[in-house]
């Protein structure tokens, strides 16, 4: 294992890997800095390119895009109060007031510094926790996998913001898409409509490009109707770019706690970087001695938000690599990229490809280091992407979606799958069904079915097997705890709202 670790580190330090990390970070920053373009879109568009690279180089590039995009959302959040990605909404609260006070450079530098620290700490967690989790998962059989996937699906439904009914519908739609192809038990062809290309199931990457990219192209095309004027100039008064040593020292605990929240929540399926900064911001505010500064340009608040969303990136990769269960929608795309390379994410990846795994981990650390440096040095140049008009962005996204889907096996059928997935995504969005549960359902559905078939075959159809095995029982009980805690929380909030309504009504009567 030590030999593999060293080999992995050396592989990630090869010039081609370093170049992939730099290119990935720069592309990620480009995507993340453009409001509306998400990390998921950036990673999904780049997956077909990684297909022709060697797995280590390709995966390092993707981690660069992922981390770079999450960080770069803060650039427009700070400069223009426009969050580049949903993950950077909290960065507007304290970042923009700093810009208004003429401290844009300091705000951007602080965001880059906190993002880098959060990312590096999550890299440490990735290095230390993933092998442990993978070793534990090696003892998992089909029964445990069924319970784990059920736990994951429960978390997806219950921990996502919004309606439980809509999230649950999303999971079932995703699982329905996962039914396409041969039945795992008897090989019966389901919903293939006479197309041999569908026998192996729907290609995850074309579906993800359709869901996340082609819909985005449509949104951007629709935006060209508005009177948006590209080329807004952003003034950045000269000043210091980094927080003082005193600021850093006084925020040590804040950075550590926010990163821990980011990693911890990142491990859970569906709790992506768009959720964690709100929680870490609230936690930092609660613990702060200067609560009054929050929302008015607090470096503490900005650091809490930025450290946690980049820590979430590493956190979401832990279950993706160790268990084959994606920790977020972006991680699901990442998982699709690994599958495209002929690799099977999960505990066996650590046994069969330890060098690759450690090279990805090392690459992830390097990516965060590059991001930190690039964020501090080139921040003024990154703001230039704001000048790109929507028409050019919509055209580029549509073009790369088609080419990306086609490049997977040079097969035009994938392009039609991509368009069909885009149409389905547009209908789902119109019906207010969130897309993250759909994607996770698509990935987890076939894993659930295959393992359910195996588990029931081994137990001769006895369903009690799921409560007889301790690990399986543990996951099921944990799922019940999530259901209970979230339900109680929602009931309390609903009662609170009813109470507020009653007060409002009584005031109205008066």
């Amino acid at each position: 294992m030590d030999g593999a670790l060293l080999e992995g580190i050396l592989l990630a330090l090869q010039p081609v890997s370093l170049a992939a990390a730099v290119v990935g970070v720069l592309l990620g920053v480009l995507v993340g800095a453009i409001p509306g373009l998400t990390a998921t879109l950036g990673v999904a568009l780049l997956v077909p390119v990684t297909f022709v690279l060697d797995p280590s180089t390709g995966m390092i590039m993707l981690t660069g895009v992922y981390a770079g995009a999450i960080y770069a959302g803060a650039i427009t959040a700070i400069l223009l109060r426009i969050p580049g990605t949903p993950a950077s909404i909290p960065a507007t609260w304290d970042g923009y007031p700093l810009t208004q006070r003429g401290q844009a450079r300091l705000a951007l530098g602080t965001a880059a510094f906190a993002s880098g620290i959060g990312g590096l700490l999550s890299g440490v967690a990735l290095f230390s926790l993933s092998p442990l989790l993978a070793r534990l998962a090696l003892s998992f059989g089909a029964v445990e996998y069924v319970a784990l996937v059920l736990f994951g699906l429960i978390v997806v439904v219950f921990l996502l913001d919004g309606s439980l009914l809509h999230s649950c519908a999303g999971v079932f739609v995703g699982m329905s898409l996962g039914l396409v192809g041969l039945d795992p038990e008897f090989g019966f062809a389901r919903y293939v409509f006479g197309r041999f290309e569908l026998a192996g199931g729907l290609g995850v990457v074309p579906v993800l490009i359709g869901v996340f990219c082609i819909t985005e192209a449509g949104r951007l095309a629709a935006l060209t109707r508005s009177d948006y004027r590209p080329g807004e100039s952003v003034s950045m008064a000269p000043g210091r770019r980094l927080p003082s040593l005193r600021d850093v020292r006084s925020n040590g605990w804040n950075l550590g706690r926010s990163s821990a929240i980011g990693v911890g929540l990142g491990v859970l399926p569906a709790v992506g970087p768009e959720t964690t900064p709100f929680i870490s911001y609230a936690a930092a505010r609660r613990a702060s001695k200067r609560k009054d500064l929050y929302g008015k340009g607090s470096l503490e608040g900005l650091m809490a938000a930025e450290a946690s969303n980049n820590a979430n990136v590493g956190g979401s990769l832990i279950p993706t690599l160790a268990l084959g269960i994606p920790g977020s929608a972006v991680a699901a795309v990442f998982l699709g990229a690994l599958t495209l390379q002929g690799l099977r994410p999960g505990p066996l990846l650590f046994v069969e490809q330890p060098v690759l795994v450690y090279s990805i981990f090392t690459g992830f650390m390097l990516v965060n280091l590059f991001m930190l440096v690039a964020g501090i040095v080139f921040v003024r140049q990154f703001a230039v992407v704001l000048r790109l008009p929507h028409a050019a962005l919509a055209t580029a996204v549509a073009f790369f979606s088609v080419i990306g889907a086609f490049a997977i096996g040079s097969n035009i059928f994938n392009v039609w799958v991509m368009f069909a997935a885009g149409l389905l995504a547009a209908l789902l969005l119109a019906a207010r069904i969130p897309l993250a549960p759909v994607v996770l359902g698509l990935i987890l559905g076939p894993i659930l079915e295959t393992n359910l078939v195996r588990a029931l075959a081994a137990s001769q159809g006895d369903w009690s097997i799921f409560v007889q095995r301790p690990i399986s029982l543990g996951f099921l009980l944990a799922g019940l705890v999530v259901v209970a805690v979230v339900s109680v929380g929602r009931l309390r909030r609903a009662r609170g709202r009813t109470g507020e309504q009653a007060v409002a009504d009584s005031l109205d009567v008066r």
Partner: protein
Amino acid sequence: MGDPDRAHGRHPTDVLARYAPPAVVAGLVLAAGAAVLTLRTLDFPETSRGHPLVVLGGASVLLALSALKNRQSLPSQSSPAAKPTFDARVSAFFGIWLLYPIALLAAGFLGSTIAALAASLSLLGIKRRWAWAAGTVPVTLMIFALLQVVLNIAMPQSVADRLVADFLYGLRG
């Protein structure tokens, strides 16, 4: 900033809502589609029927319930901003990109890509459209070189594409 979504500092995700069908209609269309597939499951051999029946049946019921729930919050859709409208430009934009794969196979990468990029940019009303349209030629050539020569992704080729590819391979040596 002119864009109201941007001006309010919120993530602009609701723009497509203006062009999408109402939530109830979309939910019911999806529920009906899932129900049709559920019925098809009954034609499967009994041994392969269980899981798809549960998953697709569940999906159709949940989608129908979601549509009903959306119906309760219908008043919010009556706001002018959320009122569905048909935008010929967005439809034509998708038309171009739906035709592009067919053109790609028929006319090769270079010709079809230059045409699609120029048409898409012009359609979306980009300023200085002639400069952008002219810019599509070198951009397309660069992407072709990247895909074909650097990444070795086989793109559909016409005679002109093959000549350019041979020239690029010659340069690579």
